[in-house]
């Protein structure tokens, strides 16, 4: 029974990673850049909901929409100000800029909201699911997070494959120059990618803070990194890969905490990442890109 409980707790943790990883992989898949500020956009999304729902007393669902809008604007602004001018620059320069943006967001949040921990009220008010006469409790927020992740995964896959903008994104991801020659607005397409990625971050932020209700300016950084690992694990750029990677990572982390050592859990998680990358460098579901010379 406790194994099942650990497994469920692992899925609960993994569903949050999966949700964040979807945003990472989306931006990486299209813009071919690692947006390390993603975790901090999540944190800002959490604060927006905290301020609007707890501070101004707006209905939590409306607060989530406000937060999604705010994060979309934030994501597009970051892309416009920090990343677009570096479009032709080396990937390393963009990466460093992303880290810079990440610290900028953390410190701005620190100045605006202070360093004290805010307790986030759970926006998922459904009752928990109790099995076997209360021996096994599945938190409603876990169920909601898993369902939301699946919906987002399916929705994104459909969006990228079937819609006009989605196909433009695929084209941009394969060859920006050629896409531009075909009349695709590359900058616009990447801006839309960031808008979608950031609004997903807001959703992830709300569910992350509902599951672990403590909000600080550093709330997003560690889950962000774990989610990045999950995205690489599943095959970065692959939308279903991010979901599977996230869930697996959460389960591995919790089971190693439970049965090996609670302190070595992170070491084990990162070792698994290294092994996966050695055996299958593109990740579990990563596509092999053939290079034409």
């Amino acid at each position, binding site marked *: 029974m406790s194994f099942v409980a650990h497994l469920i707790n692992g899925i609960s943790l993994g569903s949050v990673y999966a949700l964040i990883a979807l945003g990472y992989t989306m931006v990486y898949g299209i813009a071919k850049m690692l947006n390390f500020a993603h975790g901090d956009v999540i944190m800002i999304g959490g604060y927006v909901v905290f301020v609007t729902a707890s501070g101004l007393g707006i209905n939590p669902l409306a607060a989530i929409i406000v937060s999604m809008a705010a994060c979309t604007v934030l994501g597009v602004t970051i892309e416009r100000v920090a990343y677009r001018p570096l479009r032709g620059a080396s990937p390393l320069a963009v990466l460093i800029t992303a880290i810079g943006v990440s610290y900028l967001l953390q410190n701005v949040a620190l100045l605006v909201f202070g360093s004290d921990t805010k307790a986030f009220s759970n926006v998922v008010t459904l009752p928990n699911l109790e099995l076997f006469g209360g021996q096994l409790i599945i938190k409603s927020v876990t169920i909601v997070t898993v369902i939301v992740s699946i919906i987002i995964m399916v929705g994104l896959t459909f969006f990228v494959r079937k819609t006009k903008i989605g196909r433009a994104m695929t084209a941009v991801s394969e060859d920006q120059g050629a896409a531009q020659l075909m009349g695709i607005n590359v900058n616009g397409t990447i801006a839309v990618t960031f808008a979608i990625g950031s609004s997903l971050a807001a959703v992830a932020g709300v569910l992350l803070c509902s599951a672990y*209700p403590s909000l600080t300016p550093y709330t997003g*950084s560690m889950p962000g990194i774990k989610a990045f690992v999950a995205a690489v694990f599943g095959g970065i750029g692959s939308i279903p890969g991010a979901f599977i990677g996230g869930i697996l990572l959460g389960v591995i982390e919790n089971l190693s905490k439970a049965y090996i050592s609670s302190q070595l859990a992170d070491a084990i998680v990162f070792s698994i990442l290294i092994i996966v990358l050695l055996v299958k460098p593109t990740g579990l579901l990563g596509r092999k890109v053939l290079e034409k010379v």
Partner: protein
Amino acid sequence: MKKRMLSLVLAGVMTAALLTGCGGSAGTDAGSADGAAQESAETEETTDAAEETEAADEAAGDEAAAEDGAAQADGDSAGGTFKIGGIGPLTGSNAVYGIAAMNGSQIAVDEINAAGGINGMTVELNFQDDETDSEKSVNAYNALKDWGVQVIDGCVTSACSIAVSAKTAEDQIFQLTPSGSAVDCVATPNAFRVCFSDPNQGAASAQYIGDHSLATKVAVIYDSSDVYSSGIYEKFAAEAESQPFEVVTAGAFTADNKTDFSVQLQQAKDAGADLVFLPIYYNEAALILKQASDMGFSVKFFGCDGLDGILGVKNFDASLTEGVMLLTPFAADATDDLTVKFVTTYKEKFNETPNQFAADGYDAIYTIKAAAEKAGITADMSNEEICAAMQTAMTEITVDGLTGEGITWDASGEPTKEPKAVVIKDGVYTAM
């Protein structure tokens, strides 16, 4: 392309490691950011502070002169003055600790002076601000030395206390910290403390749980990456062996992994623990309380002074803290005469309820008094003589204070006292 991908991923993993490192020191970063913000206003403040100190000095001088005059007029053979210097944060983010310790100390000084002083000497207290900054703390100490300080009552925070104790050991000035709980605060022979040291809270907690039969099976959840938490845990585990309860699980977590406690709680539940010991800070404890309640695990929680502050977490559902016990030396609603008198005086003078730092400050002054009387300190003794005499006297005195009855000290500077705990009832600390 492939090469570029690989380099990107490698760079990513390295960066991840970098960020992880930074995550761990988040608190420090925040601290330094605060510091930087304050620095801009510093120049101004320093001048102000200097002026204030001067003014205070003058005032103190005048007062002393007046008193001397009065004493002479009365024909009383006054024993001079005994100058106690306090150091603690009176501004900045920890100001609440420093101000409380200063106010508590001041009440004790006033009481002592009203009752005839120490060995006939009038006690003077000069409390300096250190903004929780080790460097400013040493500056404050130097200012106190210029004022002619004889005994240091400070510092209120650990890092400052350590910095100042290096100086007082050099100058041979007796130092008693009311609330510096890090092990190194009393590393020098001239330094003593009123509060329990961090690790000793572990032993005290184990004794308390054992003596009051609070549990038979205890689970521990602690932060193995934090010296405060792991220090308490080690002492707790060692002391638990001689106590009538059993430590069934010890779940550790690290600074990078401090949001999900489901595994540790599940293990505690499976092991049938009836009490979970939390030698951690209140932020993580708040999450643990929430997750335990979510998983339907109803159990007693017991923590140390790190839990002090859990009621102040914004928006936190206080009903989750109902019944949480914590080791804190002072409960303002205790009904013993000493506490009632102290709380009434404190409320009258400062219009708020005193916290444990106020009680530590109060006890510190009475401890200095007891040691000074035992050592037969007189105003004409040099600081070296006072220090040597006080050091010996400290190991011989017994003090009944707010933070414990029958407190004794050994030469290491650590106090021995009965641990006190409070339980949270209806959102307030209640004496147990």
